[in-house]
């Protein structure tokens, strides 16, 4: 299903990848050439002019200057760097200039999960795109820096809080690919990964329709990564367990007692820093920008069902 990768590079699964790979291999062979010249010359000289055991020091030649030679190794690399620069720059402009007809997917990154919002309203933690259509990712972060990286497409872009960044690609092979966060973002940086799924246009459509209905709370609980901090079985993680949470009375870090009702749950999810449960750090991110109203309802219902 996937195109074969090479020894150095993964499968080339986007339209930009083959162009990328030829620039890569151009510099690669150039480097091999320089490396071989330097290494072979070094080894050859060492063997040829090696001092014999016990041989006394003698006066050596004063050969220490040769203009043509020095010109050769200044001018040739200079010419080469112009080639590399211009080629690299053209490559970069292909990344930078986003085709006008690209379909737009909104990406929200937060510690430590991804959310993709599709044009028709679906919203998922995985990236599903149709084959053969340019896709633009319009990305924002709600907390710290992140970076979206799909090796098989050769694309990567940082995501900066308080501004949008974007990237684009056009996948031309159906298949499943890895997507990584490549800007260090704290504890679970290495788990902030997900899948990209490239499907035919019709299957993509089908998928979109299936996902336009709001999923149930237990699905959202995993999708938005609540499970990374909140358990259902009473165990304490980064955050308090959801077991028997609803209806209980809890102590906050400022000493006040709070009864857990719908409004408190709502506030805890949308504005977690407002009230901090005693004994926990205020590390929970806000989900204000990620959850739709329906999703919020489902989640709160889900938490309620965790109480007997």
């Amino acid at each position: 299903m996937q195109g074969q990768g090479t020894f150095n590079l993964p499968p080339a699964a986007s339209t930009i990848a083959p162009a990328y790979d030829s620039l890569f291999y151009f510099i690669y062979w150039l480097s091999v050439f320089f490396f071989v010249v330097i290494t072979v010359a070094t080894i050859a000289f060492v063997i040829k002019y090696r001092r014999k055991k016990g041989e006394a020091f003698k006066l050596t030649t004063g050969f220490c200057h040769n203009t043509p030679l020095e010109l050769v190794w200044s001018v040739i690399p200079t010419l080469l760097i112009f080639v590399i620069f211009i080629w690299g720059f053209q490559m970069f402009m292909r990344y930078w200039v986003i085709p006008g007809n690209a379909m737009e997917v909104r990406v929200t990154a937060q510690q430590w999960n991804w959310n993709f919002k599709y044009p028709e309203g679906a919203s998922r933690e995985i990236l599903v795109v149709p084959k053969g259509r340019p896709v633009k990712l319009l990305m924002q972060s709600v907390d710290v820096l992140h970076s979206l990286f799909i090796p098989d497409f050769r694309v990567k872009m940082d995501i900066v809080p308080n501004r949008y960044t974007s990237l684009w690609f056009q996948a031309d092979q159906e298949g499943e690919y890895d997507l990584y966060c490549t800007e260090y973002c704290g504890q679970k940086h290495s788990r902030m990964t997900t899948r990209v799924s490239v499907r035919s246009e019709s299957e993509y459509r089908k998928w979109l329709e299936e996902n336009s209905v709001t999923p149930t709370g237990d699905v959202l609980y995993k999708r938005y990564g609540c499970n990374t901090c909140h358990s259902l079985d009473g165990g304490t993680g980064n955050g308090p367990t959801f077991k028997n949470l609803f209806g209980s009375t809890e102590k906050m870090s400022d000493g006040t007692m709070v009864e857990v009702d719908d409004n408190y749950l709502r506030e805890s999810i949308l504005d977690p820093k407002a009230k901090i449960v005693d004994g926990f750090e205020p590390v929970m991110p806000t989900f204000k920008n990620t959850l739709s109203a329906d999703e919020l309802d489902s989640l709160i219902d889900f938490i309620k069902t965790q109480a007997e």
Partner: protein
Amino acid sequence: MYGSSEKNYLTYPTGVKSWLFTLDHKRIGIMYLVLILLAFAAGGFFALTLRLELFRSGEQFLDQDTYNKFFTLHGAIMVFLFIIPSIPAALGNFCLPLMLGAKDVAFPRLNLASWYVYVLGAAITLYSVAMGAVDTGWTFYSPYSTQSGGEVISMTFGVFVLGFSSIFTGLNFIVTVHKMRAPGMTWYNLPLFVWGTYATAVIQVLATPVLGITLLLLILERAVGIGIFDPAMGGDPVLFQHFFWFYSHPAVYIMILPGMAIVSDLIAVHSHKKIFGYKLIAYSSVAIALLGFLVWGHHMFISGQSEFSSMVFSFITFFIGIPTGIKIFNWVTTLYKGQISLNTPMLYALAFIILFTIGGLTGVFLGALGLDVHLHDTYFVVAHFHYVMMGGTVIAFLGGIHHWWPKIFGRMYSELWGRIAFVFIFVGFNMTFFNQFMLGSQGMPRRYHDYSGFYKTDLFERYHGFSSFGALILGVGFAIITIYLIASLFNGKKASDNPWGGLTFEWATTSPPPTENFSYEPVLKHGPYDFDKVLPEDI
């Protein structure tokens, strides 16, 4: 330890106090050397732990928080406590005045102060580690660094203090080179080690204050929330990156120029041949130092900076390859028609040429705008900078230590063990890091505690496993070096004054030198590399 009849800077005066309050650049150099090697051992400990954790996919024995702290500590210790001071503060301190034919550096008290400031900075850093360390990565990127739970304030303050130590050393060296040269020693008679250290000192003085103010503002940001870097308060996190790299890119040339400086000297002396293109090597150091200030943005091609800045930074980045290439070709040509001794220091010098070339050429991949998009923040970058820092600077440092060891301590180490250890280091190093290039270009991101559950996990595991195995071999190599060097202090053969047949001033005095360096007033009679005119007996 040493023949007590003989008075040299090591044996006289005696007592701990005479060391702690010494103004002698040679003793200060040794005191630096000891601490720097300890820092290296600490950084190496963290490195080996990282490698063991990455040996297989899934969590082995470090949890995520510990792993994140360990790579931060590994990077921060290696960069700020080890590699930046390493060659200038230890070998530079020892050799520079000797090579100039001076009695000391220009400001001996400042020199001692810089050592104490280093100790203070190291102490603060240790305190930070003891209180729970930091998990921000050595780059301290905002806004994570203003939010994370770690000891960011004390750690950055430690680095801030260490900066002063670096500035003091640099300032001292610049003045020393300008004002303390022996009669007859013109700029073009300076050993290339001096040229390289001089260029380094210029960067230290010009770049470090900017890091200082940036860290100070980061500390303020965390302590009182001034809002300059924090996006939640209208600040700009990308601005922090600009300021960080404005220092930290020139800093990579603070690391490599002294390494190149050592190699220039070692190649000439051990091939007993006049260095090829002396002036070009000297100028290229200065050119690298200056160009190094204009390329910091190549760390930020996809950070959200404008594409125009990216273009300019990429363009200038490539130009550093020219003077660097000139140096490499000049070293290789120096070997031509020489009289080459393949002893331990020379092995390291030759290894430097090969390994640094790999590191530098892979820098060209990263400097090319389009290519960096895919390679940024993958193990390709990790491999690149270990090839230049470990394969470049550390290898050169090892070469320098072996080269000047007889002069510093008056003892020879075991040549046989020296060569054995070299093989371990060379093989172990390449096993550890060469496959990381493929690992990275295949897509493995850096700063990842765990790589299980990916489509490529099996592929990553093969490379990572091999790399961890190589790191162990590397560790054995360093253990061997530690043992035979320490042993040489006790039972090494006494070193002659000029064991390698060098022509610079430090070889003209006794091994070890007397307190005031020379028992006579040195006057320059020939160039540093006149192996075509002068035999070592005649210096």
